Protein backbone atom coordinates (compact mmCIF):
# COMPACT_ATOMS: atom_id res chain seq x y z
CA UNK A 1 0.00 0.00 0.00
CA UNK A 2 1.68 3.17 -1.19
CA UNK A 3 -0.82 5.65 0.16
CA UNK A 4 -2.71 4.43 3.19
CA UNK A 5 -6.30 5.61 2.91
CA UNK A 6 -7.57 7.40 5.99
CA UNK A 7 -10.66 5.24 6.38
CA UNK A 8 -11.00 1.47 6.61
CA UNK A 9 -14.73 1.45 5.91
CA UNK A 10 -16.68 3.74 3.64
CA UNK A 11 -20.33 2.84 3.22
CA UNK A 12 -23.09 4.84 1.60
CA UNK A 13 -26.76 4.10 1.28
CA UNK A 14 -26.67 0.63 2.79
CA UNK A 15 -30.13 -0.90 2.60
CA UNK A 16 -31.41 -4.23 3.75
CA UNK A 17 -34.96 -5.52 3.52
CA UNK A 18 -36.10 -8.74 5.21
CA UNK A 19 -39.33 -10.11 3.74
CA UNK A 20 -40.85 -6.70 3.14
CA UNK A 21 -39.55 -5.13 6.36
CA UNK A 22 -36.90 -2.48 5.86
CA UNK A 23 -34.28 -2.96 8.54
CA UNK A 24 -31.64 -0.64 7.13
CA UNK A 25 -32.97 2.29 5.11
CA UNK A 26 -29.82 3.85 3.76
CA UNK A 27 -26.95 3.87 6.25
CA UNK A 28 -23.89 6.02 5.65
CA UNK A 29 -20.85 5.05 7.66
CA UNK A 30 -17.16 5.86 7.68
CA UNK A 31 -14.61 4.42 10.08
CA UNK A 32 -11.18 5.97 10.24
CA UNK A 33 -8.01 3.98 10.69
CA UNK A 34 -7.48 3.05 14.33
CA UNK A 35 -10.79 4.48 15.47
CA UNK A 36 -13.18 2.66 17.84
CA UNK A 37 -16.78 3.24 16.88
CA UNK A 38 -19.63 1.96 19.02
CA UNK A 39 -22.91 1.21 17.34
CA UNK A 40 -25.92 1.44 19.60
CA UNK A 41 -29.59 0.98 19.05
CA UNK A 42 -32.65 -0.66 20.47
CA UNK A 43 -32.91 -4.37 19.98
CA UNK A 44 -34.08 -5.12 16.47
CA UNK A 45 -32.72 -1.82 15.17
CA UNK A 46 -30.41 -3.57 12.73
CA UNK A 47 -27.06 -3.21 14.54
CA UNK A 48 -26.02 -6.80 13.95
CA UNK A 49 -27.40 -6.71 10.41
CA UNK A 50 -25.11 -3.79 9.62
CA UNK A 51 -22.13 -5.56 11.18
CA UNK A 52 -22.82 -8.71 9.16
CA UNK A 53 -22.95 -6.64 5.99
CA UNK A 54 -19.57 -5.09 6.82
CA UNK A 55 -18.21 -8.58 7.54
CA UNK A 56 -19.29 -9.71 4.09
CA UNK A 57 -21.74 -12.24 5.52
CA UNK A 58 -24.84 -10.74 3.92
CA UNK A 59 -25.09 -10.91 0.14
CA UNK A 60 -28.61 -9.47 -0.06
CA UNK A 61 -27.82 -5.93 1.07
CA UNK A 62 -27.61 -3.06 -1.41
CA UNK A 63 -25.60 0.13 -1.36
CA UNK A 64 -21.97 1.01 -1.75
CA UNK A 65 -19.36 -0.48 0.53
CA UNK A 66 -15.60 -0.21 0.42
CA UNK A 67 -13.43 -1.83 3.05
CA UNK A 68 -9.68 -1.41 3.05
CA UNK A 69 -7.33 -3.98 4.51
CA UNK A 70 -8.12 -7.08 6.49
CA UNK A 71 -11.18 -7.68 8.63
CA UNK A 72 -11.78 -9.98 11.59
CA UNK A 73 -14.95 -10.67 13.53
CA UNK A 74 -15.68 -11.54 17.16
CA UNK A 75 -19.24 -12.71 17.75
CA UNK A 76 -21.31 -12.78 20.89
CA UNK A 77 -20.81 -16.53 21.15
CA UNK A 78 -17.19 -17.62 20.86
CA UNK A 79 -17.90 -19.87 17.82
CA UNK A 80 -14.76 -21.95 18.36
CA UNK A 81 -14.69 -25.28 16.52
CA UNK A 82 -15.21 -27.89 19.27
CA UNK A 83 -13.05 -30.46 17.41
CA UNK A 84 -9.95 -28.29 17.21
CA UNK A 85 -7.65 -27.54 20.09
CA UNK A 86 -7.36 -23.93 21.17
CA UNK A 87 -4.16 -23.23 19.22
CA UNK A 88 -5.60 -24.80 16.04
CA UNK A 89 -8.74 -22.71 16.40
CA UNK A 90 -6.64 -19.57 16.58
CA UNK A 91 -4.51 -20.61 13.61
CA UNK A 92 -7.57 -21.48 11.51
CA UNK A 93 -7.16 -20.04 8.04
CA UNK A 94 -3.82 -18.38 8.84
CA UNK A 95 -1.50 -18.93 5.87
CA UNK A 96 2.22 -19.33 6.02
CA UNK A 97 4.77 -21.44 7.84
CA UNK A 98 4.71 -19.29 10.95
CA UNK A 99 0.96 -19.79 11.55
CA UNK A 100 1.49 -21.79 14.75
CA UNK A 101 4.04 -19.32 16.05
CA UNK A 102 1.68 -16.42 15.42
CA UNK A 103 -1.18 -18.28 17.07
CA UNK A 104 0.98 -18.77 20.16
CA UNK A 105 1.83 -15.07 20.29
CA UNK A 106 -1.84 -14.13 19.99
CA UNK A 107 -2.75 -16.52 22.79
CA UNK A 108 -0.01 -15.01 24.94
CA UNK A 109 -1.51 -11.60 24.38
CA UNK A 110 -4.87 -12.67 25.73
CA UNK A 111 -3.15 -14.47 28.61
CA UNK A 112 -3.99 -18.02 27.54
CA UNK A 113 -0.65 -19.37 26.31
CA UNK A 114 -0.90 -22.24 28.81
CA UNK A 115 -4.25 -23.42 27.41
CA UNK A 116 -3.15 -23.77 23.78
CA UNK A 117 -3.51 -27.57 23.91
CA UNK A 118 -6.96 -27.56 25.54
CA UNK A 119 -10.26 -28.39 23.84
CA UNK A 120 -12.74 -25.48 23.68
CA UNK A 121 -15.15 -27.49 25.84
CA UNK A 122 -12.64 -27.34 28.67
CA UNK A 123 -12.64 -23.53 28.81
CA UNK A 124 -14.83 -21.15 30.78
CA UNK A 125 -17.03 -18.61 28.97
CA UNK A 126 -14.54 -15.80 29.52
CA UNK A 127 -11.60 -17.93 28.38
CA UNK A 128 -13.44 -19.01 25.24
CA UNK A 129 -14.16 -15.41 24.36
CA UNK A 130 -10.51 -14.52 24.91
CA UNK A 131 -9.56 -17.28 22.47
CA UNK A 132 -12.05 -15.78 20.02
CA UNK A 133 -10.20 -12.47 20.41
CA UNK A 134 -6.88 -14.21 19.80
CA UNK A 135 -8.35 -15.81 16.67
CA UNK A 136 -9.26 -12.33 15.44
CA UNK A 137 -5.95 -10.73 16.47
CA UNK A 138 -3.76 -13.30 14.74
CA UNK A 139 -5.10 -11.99 11.42
CA UNK A 140 -3.66 -8.55 12.27
CA UNK A 141 -6.91 -6.90 11.24
CA UNK A 142 -7.20 -3.32 10.08
CA UNK A 143 -10.82 -3.53 11.10
CA UNK A 144 -12.18 -5.56 14.00
CA UNK A 145 -15.93 -6.14 13.95
CA UNK A 146 -17.38 -6.94 17.37
CA UNK A 147 -20.96 -8.13 17.71
CA UNK A 148 -21.82 -7.73 21.39
CA UNK A 149 -18.63 -9.61 22.26
CA UNK A 150 -19.09 -9.26 26.01
CA UNK A 151 -22.85 -9.70 26.02
CA UNK A 152 -22.89 -13.31 27.15
CA UNK A 153 -20.37 -12.87 29.98
CA UNK A 154 -21.00 -12.28 33.66
CA UNK A 155 -20.56 -8.73 34.96
CA UNK A 156 -17.08 -9.20 36.46
CA UNK A 157 -15.67 -11.06 33.46
CA UNK A 158 -17.15 -8.38 31.22
CA UNK A 159 -15.20 -5.65 33.03
CA UNK A 160 -11.96 -7.63 32.67
CA UNK A 161 -12.64 -8.23 29.00
CA UNK A 162 -13.32 -4.55 28.39
CA UNK A 163 -9.97 -3.72 29.96
CA UNK A 164 -8.33 -6.40 27.80
CA UNK A 165 -9.92 -4.89 24.71
CA UNK A 166 -8.52 -1.47 25.69
CA UNK A 167 -5.01 -2.93 26.01
CA UNK A 168 -5.23 -4.82 22.73
CA UNK A 169 -6.45 -1.73 20.91
CA UNK A 170 -3.65 0.36 22.36
CA UNK A 171 -1.12 -2.28 21.28
CA UNK A 172 -2.39 -3.00 17.77
CA UNK A 173 -4.18 0.16 16.71
CA UNK A 174 -6.88 -1.60 14.71
CA UNK A 175 -10.09 0.21 13.89
CA UNK A 176 -13.12 -1.36 15.53
CA UNK A 177 -16.85 -1.34 15.17
CA UNK A 178 -18.39 -2.37 18.47
CA UNK A 179 -22.04 -3.36 18.37
CA UNK A 180 -23.39 -3.16 21.90
CA UNK A 181 -26.50 -2.43 23.90
CA UNK A 182 -24.46 -1.46 26.95
CA UNK A 183 -24.25 2.32 27.12
CA UNK A 184 -21.45 2.38 29.70
CA UNK A 185 -19.38 -0.07 27.69
CA UNK A 186 -19.77 2.14 24.63
CA UNK A 187 -18.74 5.24 26.57
CA UNK A 188 -15.73 3.47 28.10
CA UNK A 189 -14.33 2.02 24.90
CA UNK A 190 -15.36 4.15 21.93
CA UNK A 191 -14.02 7.31 20.30
CA UNK A 192 -17.32 7.87 18.54
CA UNK A 193 -20.86 6.65 19.08
CA UNK A 194 -23.47 5.99 16.45
CA UNK A 195 -27.11 5.49 17.33
CA UNK A 196 -29.13 3.46 14.87
CA UNK A 197 -32.83 4.26 14.79
CA UNK A 198 -35.51 3.65 12.15
CA UNK A 199 -32.94 2.09 9.86
CA UNK A 200 -30.67 5.12 9.78
CA UNK A 201 -27.82 6.60 11.80
CA UNK A 202 -29.92 8.93 13.93
CA UNK A 203 -27.13 10.47 15.97
CA UNK A 204 -23.38 10.69 16.00
CA UNK A 205 -21.51 11.64 19.16
CA UNK A 206 -17.79 12.21 19.56
CA UNK A 207 -16.59 10.93 22.94
CA UNK A 208 -13.97 13.36 24.20
CA UNK A 209 -13.45 11.94 27.63
CA UNK A 210 -9.72 11.29 27.27
CA UNK A 211 -7.97 8.01 28.10
CA UNK A 212 -7.73 6.01 30.28
CA UNK A 213 -11.36 6.32 31.12
CA UNK A 214 -13.55 5.33 34.05
CA UNK A 215 -17.22 5.78 34.77
CA UNK A 216 -16.41 8.62 37.20
CA UNK A 217 -14.60 10.96 34.76
CA UNK A 218 -16.33 14.34 34.41
CA UNK A 219 -18.79 14.41 31.56
CA UNK A 220 -19.48 10.67 31.63
CA UNK A 221 -22.89 10.79 33.24
CA UNK A 222 -24.00 13.65 31.02
CA UNK A 223 -23.22 11.65 27.89
CA UNK A 224 -24.83 8.59 29.42
CA UNK A 225 -28.06 10.46 29.99
CA UNK A 226 -28.04 11.82 26.47
CA UNK A 227 -27.50 8.37 25.02
CA UNK A 228 -30.19 6.71 27.08
CA UNK A 229 -32.65 9.37 25.97
CA UNK A 230 -31.71 8.70 22.35
CA UNK A 231 -32.34 5.01 22.96
CA UNK A 232 -35.80 5.81 24.36
CA UNK A 233 -34.87 4.65 27.87
CA UNK A 234 -36.25 6.65 30.81
CA UNK A 235 -33.19 8.09 32.57
CA UNK A 236 -34.80 8.84 35.92
CA UNK A 237 -36.76 5.99 37.31
CA UNK A 238 -39.36 8.30 38.86
CA UNK A 239 -39.92 10.18 35.61
CA UNK A 240 -43.02 9.21 33.63
CA UNK A 241 -42.34 6.97 30.69
CA UNK A 242 -42.91 8.90 27.52
CA UNK A 243 -44.98 7.13 24.87
Amino acid at each position, binding site marked *: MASRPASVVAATGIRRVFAGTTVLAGVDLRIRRGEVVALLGESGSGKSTLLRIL*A*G*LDQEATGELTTTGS*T*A*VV*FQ*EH*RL*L*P*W*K*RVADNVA*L*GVRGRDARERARTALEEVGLADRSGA*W*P*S*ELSGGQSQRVAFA*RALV*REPDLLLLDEPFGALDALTRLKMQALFGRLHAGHGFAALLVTHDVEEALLLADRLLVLDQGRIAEEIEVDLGRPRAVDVPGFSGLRRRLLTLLHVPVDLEAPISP
Partner: protein
Amino acid sequence: MRLRPRRLITPIVLVAGWEGAARAGVLPHDKLPAPSDVAAAAWRLSLDGTLGLHLLESLERAALGLLIGGSLALVLGAVAGLLRTGDDLVDPPVQAARMLPHLGLVPLLIIWVGIGESLKISLVALGAFFPIYLNTYAGIRGIDERLVEAARTCGLTQLERIRHVVLPGAMPSLFLGLRLAFAAGWLSLVVGEQVNGQSGLGFMMMEARDFSQTEIVVLGLVVYASLGLLSDLALRTAERRTLSWRRGLRAS
Protein backbone atom coordinates in the same frame (compact mmCIF):
# COMPACT_ATOMS: atom_id res chain seq x y z
CA MET B 1 -17.23 -48.73 31.32
CA ARG B 2 -15.67 -50.88 34.02
CA LEU B 3 -16.61 -54.52 34.03
CA ARG B 4 -18.28 -55.36 37.32
CA PRO B 5 -17.79 -59.02 38.30
CA ARG B 6 -21.42 -59.23 39.39
CA ARG B 7 -22.54 -58.76 35.82
CA LEU B 8 -20.92 -62.10 34.93
CA ILE B 9 -23.06 -64.13 37.31
CA THR B 10 -26.22 -64.56 35.22
CA PRO B 11 -24.48 -65.53 31.95
CA ILE B 12 -22.36 -68.14 33.79
CA VAL B 13 -25.39 -69.55 35.59
CA LEU B 14 -27.31 -69.75 32.32
CA VAL B 15 -24.54 -71.58 30.46
CA ALA B 16 -23.97 -73.90 33.41
CA GLY B 17 -27.70 -74.64 33.58
CA TRP B 18 -27.77 -75.33 29.84
CA GLU B 19 -24.79 -77.69 30.16
CA GLY B 20 -26.38 -79.46 33.11
CA ALA B 21 -29.73 -79.84 31.36
CA ALA B 22 -28.06 -81.23 28.24
CA ARG B 23 -25.95 -83.71 30.24
CA ALA B 24 -28.98 -84.84 32.24
CA GLY B 25 -30.79 -85.52 29.01
CA VAL B 26 -33.50 -82.88 29.63
CA LEU B 27 -32.42 -81.19 26.39
CA PRO B 28 -32.25 -83.72 23.54
CA HIS B 29 -28.93 -83.54 21.74
CA ASP B 30 -30.47 -83.23 18.28
CA LYS B 31 -32.45 -80.15 19.41
CA LEU B 32 -29.86 -78.27 21.47
CA PRO B 33 -26.42 -79.78 22.19
CA ALA B 34 -24.46 -78.98 25.34
CA PRO B 35 -22.15 -75.93 25.27
CA SER B 36 -19.20 -78.28 25.71
CA ASP B 37 -20.23 -80.10 22.50
CA VAL B 38 -20.32 -76.75 20.68
CA ALA B 39 -16.88 -75.90 22.06
CA ALA B 40 -15.59 -79.31 20.98
CA ALA B 41 -16.98 -78.75 17.49
CA ALA B 42 -15.32 -75.33 17.41
CA TRP B 43 -11.99 -76.91 18.39
CA ARG B 44 -12.30 -79.72 15.84
CA LEU B 45 -13.29 -77.41 12.95
CA SER B 46 -10.60 -74.91 13.87
CA LEU B 47 -7.94 -77.62 13.81
CA ASP B 48 -8.90 -79.00 10.41
CA GLY B 49 -9.21 -75.45 9.03
CA THR B 50 -12.87 -75.70 8.02
CA LEU B 51 -14.01 -72.95 10.39
CA GLY B 52 -11.21 -70.61 9.35
CA LEU B 53 -11.99 -71.15 5.68
CA HIS B 54 -15.70 -70.42 6.03
CA LEU B 55 -15.06 -67.51 8.37
CA LEU B 56 -12.66 -65.94 5.89
CA GLU B 57 -15.17 -66.37 3.10
CA SER B 58 -17.91 -64.67 5.13
CA LEU B 59 -15.60 -61.85 6.21
CA GLU B 60 -14.63 -61.21 2.63
CA ARG B 61 -18.28 -60.88 1.59
CA ALA B 62 -19.03 -58.58 4.52
CA ALA B 63 -16.02 -56.38 3.82
CA LEU B 64 -16.76 -56.11 0.10
CA GLY B 65 -20.44 -55.38 0.67
CA LEU B 66 -19.71 -52.76 3.33
CA LEU B 67 -17.09 -51.15 1.16
CA ILE B 68 -19.34 -50.91 -1.89
CA GLY B 69 -22.52 -49.89 -0.07
CA GLY B 70 -20.65 -47.65 2.34
CA SER B 71 -18.69 -45.66 -0.23
CA LEU B 72 -21.74 -45.21 -2.42
CA ALA B 73 -23.72 -44.00 0.60
CA LEU B 74 -20.94 -41.68 1.68
CA VAL B 75 -20.67 -40.06 -1.75
CA LEU B 76 -24.43 -39.72 -2.27
CA GLY B 77 -25.01 -38.57 1.32
CA ALA B 78 -22.33 -35.91 0.95
CA VAL B 79 -23.70 -34.75 -2.42
CA ALA B 80 -27.24 -34.51 -1.02
CA GLY B 81 -26.04 -32.89 2.20
CA LEU B 82 -23.68 -30.33 0.68
CA LEU B 83 -25.41 -29.27 -2.53
CA ARG B 84 -28.94 -28.01 -2.92
CA THR B 85 -29.21 -29.56 -6.38
CA GLY B 86 -27.84 -32.79 -4.99
CA ASP B 87 -30.45 -32.71 -2.27
CA ASP B 88 -33.26 -32.18 -4.79
CA LEU B 89 -32.04 -34.90 -7.14
CA VAL B 90 -30.70 -37.58 -4.80
CA ASP B 91 -32.69 -37.44 -1.60
CA PRO B 92 -36.28 -38.15 -2.81
CA PRO B 93 -35.52 -41.49 -4.51
CA VAL B 94 -33.32 -42.60 -1.62
CA GLN B 95 -35.99 -41.72 0.93
CA ALA B 96 -38.51 -43.69 -1.09
CA ALA B 97 -36.23 -46.71 -1.52
CA ARG B 98 -35.46 -46.69 2.19
CA MET B 99 -39.02 -47.79 2.86
CA LEU B 100 -38.40 -51.09 1.04
CA PRO B 101 -37.36 -53.86 3.42
CA HIS B 102 -34.14 -54.73 1.63
CA LEU B 103 -34.18 -58.37 2.76
CA GLY B 104 -37.50 -58.69 0.94
CA LEU B 105 -35.62 -58.03 -2.28
CA VAL B 106 -33.98 -61.48 -2.23
CA PRO B 107 -36.30 -63.02 -4.86
CA LEU B 108 -35.82 -60.05 -7.19
CA LEU B 109 -32.08 -59.97 -6.58
CA ILE B 110 -31.84 -63.68 -7.42
CA ILE B 111 -33.44 -62.90 -10.79
CA TRP B 112 -31.12 -59.93 -11.32
CA VAL B 113 -27.73 -61.17 -10.15
CA GLY B 114 -28.23 -64.90 -9.67
CA ILE B 115 -27.60 -66.97 -6.57
CA GLY B 116 -23.82 -66.64 -6.43
CA GLU B 117 -21.43 -64.31 -4.68
CA SER B 118 -22.98 -61.15 -6.13
CA LEU B 119 -26.25 -61.87 -4.32
CA LYS B 120 -24.58 -61.98 -0.92
CA ILE B 121 -22.44 -58.92 -1.54
CA SER B 122 -25.40 -56.96 -2.97
CA LEU B 123 -27.48 -57.74 0.10
CA VAL B 124 -24.75 -56.57 2.48
CA ALA B 125 -24.17 -53.44 0.40
CA LEU B 126 -27.89 -52.65 0.42
CA GLY B 127 -28.08 -53.18 4.17
CA ALA B 128 -25.09 -50.93 4.80
CA PHE B 129 -26.14 -48.21 2.34
CA PHE B 130 -29.15 -46.69 4.07
CA PRO B 131 -27.82 -46.12 7.61
CA ILE B 132 -24.65 -44.52 6.24
CA TYR B 133 -26.48 -42.38 3.69
CA LEU B 134 -29.05 -41.14 6.20
CA ASN B 135 -26.51 -40.33 8.89
CA THR B 136 -24.04 -38.65 6.54
CA TYR B 137 -26.89 -36.49 5.24
CA ALA B 138 -28.21 -35.69 8.72
CA GLY B 139 -24.71 -35.06 10.05
CA ILE B 140 -23.91 -32.52 7.35
CA ARG B 141 -27.32 -30.87 7.61
CA GLY B 142 -26.99 -30.64 11.37
CA ILE B 143 -23.81 -28.55 11.32
CA ASP B 144 -24.12 -25.33 13.28
CA GLU B 145 -24.38 -22.65 10.59
CA ARG B 146 -22.74 -20.14 12.94
CA LEU B 147 -19.52 -22.17 12.94
CA VAL B 148 -19.45 -22.21 9.14
CA GLU B 149 -19.94 -18.47 9.18
CA ALA B 150 -17.13 -17.95 11.69
CA ALA B 151 -14.86 -20.05 9.47
CA ARG B 152 -15.79 -17.82 6.57
CA THR B 153 -14.75 -14.71 8.48
CA CYS B 154 -11.44 -16.50 9.15
CA GLY B 155 -10.87 -16.55 5.40
CA LEU B 156 -11.47 -20.25 4.77
CA THR B 157 -12.40 -21.19 1.21
CA GLN B 158 -15.38 -23.40 0.57
CA LEU B 159 -13.22 -26.52 0.32
CA GLU B 160 -11.40 -25.63 3.53
CA ARG B 161 -14.72 -25.06 5.28
CA ILE B 162 -15.82 -28.54 4.25
CA ARG B 163 -12.56 -30.02 5.49
CA HIS B 164 -12.25 -28.15 8.79
CA VAL B 165 -15.88 -27.56 9.74
CA VAL B 166 -18.37 -29.75 7.90
CA LEU B 167 -16.56 -33.10 7.90
CA PRO B 168 -15.41 -33.07 11.53
CA GLY B 169 -18.82 -31.78 12.56
CA ALA B 170 -20.54 -34.65 10.76
CA MET B 171 -18.19 -37.26 12.26
CA PRO B 172 -20.28 -38.24 15.31
CA SER B 173 -23.28 -38.84 13.08
CA LEU B 174 -21.12 -40.74 10.60
CA PHE B 175 -19.89 -43.13 13.28
CA LEU B 176 -23.45 -43.79 14.35
CA GLY B 177 -24.29 -44.61 10.73
CA LEU B 178 -21.29 -46.90 10.49
CA ARG B 179 -22.31 -48.87 13.57
CA LEU B 180 -25.86 -49.26 12.31
CA ALA B 181 -24.47 -50.26 8.90
CA PHE B 182 -22.32 -52.99 10.43
CA ALA B 183 -25.32 -54.38 12.29
CA ALA B 184 -27.46 -54.31 9.12
CA GLY B 185 -24.56 -55.75 7.13
CA TRP B 186 -24.18 -58.82 9.36
CA LEU B 187 -27.91 -59.41 9.28
CA SER B 188 -27.94 -59.24 5.47
CA LEU B 189 -24.99 -61.61 5.33
CA VAL B 190 -26.77 -64.20 7.46
CA VAL B 191 -29.81 -64.08 5.20
CA GLY B 192 -27.75 -64.03 2.00
CA GLU B 193 -25.59 -66.97 2.98
CA GLN B 194 -28.60 -69.21 3.44
CA VAL B 195 -29.30 -68.97 -0.27
CA ASN B 196 -27.33 -71.60 -2.15
CA GLY B 197 -23.95 -71.21 -0.45
CA GLN B 198 -20.84 -73.09 -1.50
CA SER B 199 -18.82 -71.71 1.38
CA GLY B 200 -19.09 -69.34 4.29
CA LEU B 201 -20.57 -69.59 7.75
CA GLY B 202 -24.12 -69.79 6.42
CA PHE B 203 -23.20 -72.71 4.15
CA MET B 204 -21.46 -74.41 7.08
CA MET B 205 -24.66 -74.13 9.09
CA MET B 206 -26.98 -75.27 6.31
CA GLU B 207 -24.79 -78.27 5.57
CA ALA B 208 -24.66 -79.18 9.28
CA ARG B 209 -28.44 -79.02 9.44
CA ASP B 210 -28.68 -81.56 6.61
CA PHE B 211 -26.53 -83.94 8.67
CA SER B 212 -28.30 -83.04 11.95
CA GLN B 213 -25.04 -81.70 13.40
CA THR B 214 -26.83 -79.29 15.71
CA GLU B 215 -23.61 -78.34 17.53
CA ILE B 216 -22.20 -76.86 14.28
CA VAL B 217 -25.41 -74.91 13.67
CA VAL B 218 -25.12 -73.42 17.15
CA LEU B 219 -21.40 -72.80 16.59
CA GLY B 220 -22.28 -70.79 13.46
CA LEU B 221 -24.66 -68.65 15.49
CA VAL B 222 -22.01 -68.06 18.14
CA VAL B 223 -19.49 -67.00 15.49
CA TYR B 224 -21.99 -64.61 13.85
CA ALA B 225 -22.72 -63.06 17.24
CA SER B 226 -19.03 -62.71 18.08
CA LEU B 227 -18.37 -61.02 14.74
CA GLY B 228 -21.07 -58.47 15.44
CA LEU B 229 -19.79 -57.89 18.94
CA LEU B 230 -16.16 -57.53 17.88
CA SER B 231 -16.88 -55.18 14.99
CA ASP B 232 -18.99 -52.96 17.23
CA LEU B 233 -16.26 -52.92 19.84
CA ALA B 234 -13.65 -51.97 17.24
CA LEU B 235 -15.87 -49.18 15.90
CA ARG B 236 -16.51 -47.82 19.38
CA THR B 237 -12.79 -47.74 20.09
CA ALA B 238 -12.14 -45.93 16.81
CA GLU B 239 -14.94 -43.52 17.63
CA ARG B 240 -13.54 -42.76 21.06
CA ARG B 241 -10.14 -42.02 19.56
CA THR B 242 -11.39 -39.91 16.67
CA LEU B 243 -13.88 -37.97 18.73
CA SER B 244 -11.69 -37.35 21.76
CA TRP B 245 -12.73 -33.68 21.68
CA ARG B 246 -16.12 -34.74 22.97
CA ARG B 247 -14.71 -35.99 26.25
CA GLY B 248 -14.79 -32.52 27.80
CA LEU B 249 -18.35 -32.03 26.57
CA ARG B 250 -19.52 -35.19 28.27
CA ALA B 251 -17.76 -34.46 31.53
CA SER B 252 -19.21 -30.98 31.88
